[in-house]
C-alpha cells in the first residue's frame, strides 16, 4: 500500500503540465519562429485546411479499408455477412407474399393463370420478379392486359383484363374463338359449344374480323338462317346461309352490297326462293344462280306460250 501511494505521488507531477521553462532573468519570446509562422499560415489556407481536415481522415479510412480488403478471406467474409443481413431483412414476415388473388378473369382463365404463375409460397416480395410474371400472364391468349402488385398483407394481386371472344373461326386445326381484335382467345371442340357466336372461316378471316362483324350485323333480318362467313382468297367474303345458299360479296363495300340483298329479300322474299348463289361481286351486275329444279321450272315457264316471265334477267331501275 505504501509503495502504491509512493508510486502515485511520483506519477502525479509528470501528468500535470507545468509552465514552459524559462531561463531566469529572461522573458519568454512571444514571437513565432519563421517556420512556425509559415506553418500557421499554411494551416490557415482554406484549400490546404480542407484537404487536411476532410481529405486526411477520408484517405486514412480508405487506406485502412483497402488494406483490410486486400485479403480474399476478408472479402468473402464481408460479402457473406452482407448477404446474411440482406436475407434477414428480406425474410421478415412483412415482406412475405403468401397468396395470389386473381381479379377479372373467369374460372377457366383463373385456372390457366394459376397454372402459369405458379410460385412457391411463401416468397419474399424482394425475390418476386413481377415483370417476368406479368409477361407470363399476358402471354396467355385470353389475357389482354395484366397488372400485378403486392398488396399489404402479403397478397399478390393479378388484375387481368380478359379478351372477349366475338366469333368462332373454323380453321384447319379446329374451331378457334377470336376476339374483336382478331386475336385467338381459345379453342372449342364443337360448334354447338358456342352457338351464340357467329362463325367465320377461310384464310385471313381473322384479319378482317371488323368487316365480318359489320356484315353479321347487316344480316340481322336473316340471322336465323345465317351459317357463317367464308373469306375467299383473303380479300372478300361469302355469306353462307342454310340450304347451301351463298351470297358472294364484293371486296369493296361488302356491307352496302349485303344491305341491297337484304332490301331485295324484304321486298320480294328473294332468299326464300330456290336460289343457289346471289352474286354481288360486280356491283352493277348482280347475278342469281338458281338450283336446277328452279331453273328447269323457270325454263319451262318461259317456254310455255303466254307467259310473261322473261328468261332474261330482271332489269333494274337505277
Amino acid at each position, binding site marked *: 500500500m505504501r509503495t502504491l501511494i509512493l508510486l502515485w505521488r511520483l506519477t502525479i507531477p509528470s501528468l500535470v503540465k507545468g509552465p514552459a521553462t524559462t531561463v531566469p532573468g529572461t522573458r519568454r519570446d512571444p*514571437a513565432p519562429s*519563421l517556420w512556425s*509562422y509559415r506553418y*500557421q*499560415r499554411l494551416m*490557415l489556407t482554406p484549400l490546404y485546411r480542407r484537404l487536411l481536415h476532410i481529405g486526411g481522415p477520408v484517405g486514412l479510412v480508405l487506406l485502412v479499408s483497402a488494406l483490410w480488403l486486400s485479403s480474399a478471406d476478408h472479402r468473402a467474409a464481408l460479402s457473406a455477412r452482407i448477404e446474411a443481413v440482406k436475407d434477414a431483412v428480406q425474410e421478415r414476415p412483412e415482406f412475405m407474399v403468401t397468396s395470389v388473388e386473381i381479379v377479372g378473369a373467369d374460372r377457366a382463365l383463373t385456372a390457366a393463370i394459376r397454372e402459369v404463375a405458379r410460385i412457391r409460397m411463401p416468397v419474399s416480395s424482394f425475390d418476386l420478379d413481377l415483370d417476368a410474371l406479368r409477361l407470363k400472364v399476358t402471354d396467355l391468349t385470353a389475357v389482354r392486359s395484366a397488372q400485378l402488385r403486392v398488396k399489404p398483407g402479403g397478397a399478390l394481386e393479378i388484375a387481368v383484363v380478359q379478351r372477349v371472344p366475338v366469333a368462332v373461326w373454323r380453321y384447319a386445326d379446329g374451331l378457334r374463338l377470336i376476339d374483336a381484335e382478331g386475336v385467338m382467345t381459345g379453342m372449342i371442340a364443337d360448334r354447338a359449344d358456342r352457338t351464340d357466336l357467329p362463325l367465320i372461316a377461310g384464310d385471313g378471316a381473322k384479319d378482317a374480323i371488323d368487316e365480318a362483324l359489320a356484315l353479321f350485323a347487316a344480316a340481322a333480318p336473316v340471322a336465323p338462317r345465317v351459317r357463317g362467313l367464308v373469306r375467299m382468297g383473303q380479300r372478300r367474303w361469302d355469306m353462307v346461309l342454310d340450304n347451301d345458299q351463298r351470297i358472294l360479296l364484293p371486296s369493296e363495300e361488302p356491307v352496302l352490297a349485303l344491305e341491297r340483298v337484304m332490301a331485295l329479300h324484304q321486298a320480294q322474299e328473294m332468299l326464300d326462293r330456290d336460289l343457289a348463289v346471289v352474286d354481288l361481286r360486280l356491283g352493277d351486275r348482280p347475278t342469281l344462280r338458281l338450283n336446277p329444279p328452279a331453273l328447269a321450272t323457270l325454263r319451262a315457264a318461259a317456254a310455255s306460250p303466254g307467259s310473261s316471265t322473261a328468261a332474261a334477267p330482271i332489269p333494274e331501275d337505277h
Partner: protein
Amino acid sequence: MRPLYETQRLMRGIRRAALQRGVIAILDLGTSKTACLVLRFDGPQRSQAVDGVGPMAGQSQFKVIGHAVTRSRGVRFGEVDSMGETERAIRTAVQAAQKDAQVRVDHVIVCFSGARPESHGLFGEAEVEGPTVDGWDIGRVLGSCDVPAIGPEREVLHAQPVNWSLDHRTGLADPRGQVGQRLASDLHLLAVDGPAVETLLLCLKRCDLECAGIASSAYVSGIASLVEDEQELGAVCIDMGGGTTGLSVFMRKHMIYAESIRMGGEHVTSDISMGLQIPMAMAERIKTLYGGVVATGKDDRELIPIGGDTGDWEHDRRVVSRTELIGIMRPRVEEILEEVRARLDHAGFDQLPSQSIVLTGGGSQIPGLDGLAARILGRKVRLGRPLRVQGLPKAATGAAFSAAVGLTLFAAHPQDEWWDFEIPSDRQSSRSLRRAVKWFKDNW
C-alpha cells in the same frame, strides 16, 4: 530594387487585387507597439441591410475581423533599426491577428512614422487639349510640376493633388469633365528617406507578406481622428507616438503639410528611468499609471513605490511622490510641444481659417495634456479618438490606435495620388506612334 515611384504604382494594383479577394491586413508599425488589423471587404451591398444607419462615411463596406497588438521590437524613431527583431514583431502581430480572424492574409497595408518626412508644395499647369478636361490633361499637369530638390536618397511617399484651378476658377475638387483652357494644380509632396522605406518593405517581404500600400502614420491618424469639419476648415492632428510625434495639417479635406518630430513617449519614459534610477519597464508602468503634467497639492501626498530587486532593503523600498514624477515628465512633454509649435509656425498654420488642434496617439493620454498643449500652442485643443469602424474591438478604440484605424480608412478610400493618373504621353514611347499617326493624317 525598383524606384519607390514604380513600387507605389504596383502597390495600387496589389491593393485592388486584395480588395477583390476581400481580405487585407493593416499593419501599424510603431516604435512602442505593432498593431495588426485584418479587414474583410464585403462590398457596399451589406451596408444597405442595416436600417436607419447611414453609409457612415463610406467605411461600412469593411469589417475588422482580426486584431492583434504586440510590443514593438527593433524599431526606433519609427524606423526599422534591427531587421530581425522587427520581423519577429511583425510575425507575432500578423500571426495573432490571423488566428483571431481565422483567415490567412497575404496583402498588408503598412504605415510608419519615421524616415524624416518633409513636405513640399508643387505647382503645375498645362493647356487642356480636348474640349473638356480628361485624365490625360491631368497627367500632363502633374507631369509639368517641377520636382523640388528633395535631396539625395529621398523618395516620394505621398504626392497628392490638393487643389485644382481651371482658368480663373480655383478650389475645384475634381476638374475631370469640366470645360476650360488652362488647368493648374497644387500638389502636396511628402518626401521620406528612401532606404528606410525600402528596409521596411524588405521586412514585410521576409515575412511572406505582399505590401499593398504604404502611408505616413501622421497622415492616416489625421484621417482617423479629425472630424469632417475640422478636415474641411483646417486643423492639425498631432499624433504623439512612442518614438516620434507626427503632425499633419488638413485643409479642404486634403493633407497640406506633414512633419515628424523625433521625440515621443519613449523619451519621457527614458527620462523617468534615468531620473528615478529604475528599469525602463518599471518607468513605463509608473508613467502610464501615475503620469501627468500638472501637479496639484494632492500629488505631494501620493507616494509611488518604485521598487527593485537588488536585495538591498533601502533600495528596493524607495518611493517617489507623484509631484516628482510630474516634475520629470513635464519638461520633456513641454519640449515636444514647443517643437510642434515651432513646426506649425514654420508651416504657416496661423494662416488657416480654423485652427483646431487635435491631440491623438498613445502619448496624448497623459492626464492634463490638453491644458498644457493649449497653453503652449495657444489654440483650442481637443483630444482626438479615432473614428469607430465596424468590428473594431473595444481594446483598439483608444487614441493609441488612431493610426491603425486611419489606415483602414486609407485602405477603403485611398486619396488619388500622383501615380494614379496616366503618365503623360510625351514621356512615353507612344509619342512617336502618335507622331506617325499624325503624319499619316496630314499627308492623306
